[in-house]
């Protein structure tokens, strides 16, 4: 297992530039929105929660392609199914590695972005925490959608369509935590909810994705 985990990490390390593109997409989307409006500081601050979380979400959706769609196209599933590891375990390892290479940079960039959008100290802290708790859920939920559309041509768009509604609760809690912090109120309730949904999705997503892959591949 250790060897497998190291290999998984090295896969991402070998294609680290690809993985960092997730960060780049996040930054570009984050930049696009202020460009589209009159850049008044007040408006920017109000928009900030939605913009940051929206960008994180979309970066994550773009990242799904590298999560395992590409591998599936190359016949990875057969190798995984005939391996000695349970498929959910393999998927879980992959998700963790994926998050480390795509989620973590987004969290860091989100904090920077929040500062750039002129948010307050507690607001920036809320951005950091909510992204830290939220992005793993995004990866986990995304993996289910990616698995469901695994052997479709043009499945990228369908998986985006399937996954975005699932992301909504995460978005709502995440953005509201930021907005509350900005308004000087406590964020514990929102973050607590995000933590719960994180636990739930981490536990269930590998199982659901594995089931989906098997169903779809038959």
């Amino acid at each position, binding site marked *: 297992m250790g060897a497998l985990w190291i*290999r998984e990490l090295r*896969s991402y390390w070998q294609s680290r530039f690809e993985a960092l593109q997730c960060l780049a997409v996040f930054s570009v989307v984050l930049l696009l929105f202020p460009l589209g409006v009159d850049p008044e500081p007040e408006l920017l601050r109000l928009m900030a929660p939605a913009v940051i979380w929206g960008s994180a979400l979309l970066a994550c959706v773009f990242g799904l392609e590298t999560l395992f769609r590409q591998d599936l*196209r190359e*016949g990875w599933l*057969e190798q995984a199914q005939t*391996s*000695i590891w349970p498929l959910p375990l*393999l998927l879980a390892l992959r998700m963790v590695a994926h998050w480390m290479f795509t989620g973590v940079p987004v969290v860091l960039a989100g904090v920077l972005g929040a500062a750039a959008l002129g948010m307050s100290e507690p607001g920036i802290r809320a951005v950091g925490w909510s992204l830290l708790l939220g992005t793993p859920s995004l990866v986990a939920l995304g993996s289910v959608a990616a698995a469901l559309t695994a052997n479709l041509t043009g499945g990228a768009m369908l998986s985006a369509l399937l996954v975005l509604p699932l992301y909504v609760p995460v978005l709502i809690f995440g953005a509201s935590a930021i907005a509350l912090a900005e308004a000087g109120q406590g964020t514990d309730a929102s973050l607590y909810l995000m933590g719960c949904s994180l636990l739930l999705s981490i536990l269930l997503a590998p199982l659901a994705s594995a089931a989906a892959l098997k169903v779809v*591949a038959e």
Partner: protein
Amino acid sequence: MTPLLSVRQLHHERGDRELFGGLDVDIHGGEILQVVGPNGHGKSTLLRILAGLIRPDVGTLAWRGRAFTSWEDEPVAPLMWLGERPGWAAAHSVEHNWRYLRSLRGLTPDREACWIDPAWWPRRFGDLSTGQRKRASLAFIEISGAAVWFLDEPLSGLDVAMSAQWQSRMQQAASRGTAIVLVSHDALTFSPDRVLTWTGEY
């Protein structure tokens, strides 16, 4: 002797057409079974069913005499699969693919004395030629220590010399007790222990 793998009363449909209507197959250790038959009559599908990749509509699969559930219980993967898609990542180096696939099966990354040309290790798998890719996949299968190999058209793409080499390597593996099920349209240089000519109910 109980067969390594056996399937009984196999029925399976694909898109309205019944491919198998009650097929029985036994696979014994040390035996090479060649499946031949016309295009589209279900050879590849049969192989996938035997390897446990798809569940048949009707029929039971037994592994070493016990009903098959999944391959996850064994310490070392008991079977190897070569399908149309190799399962190697085109964007990664041959070496990385090798180590990854070995670790998937709980094997150490040994790479001495295998059938891969040493010059290939650092190259991207996707940059190899058709035959080189095939050979790399076969080399991996050869030193895996698995009890059964399922090979779908292993010889296609290999040049004449390589094809002959692989065939003698298969024979050696069989003599060490490996069971090999291969689908191939080509005539083999040796005569396999058993030939399943599947013309089917198609």
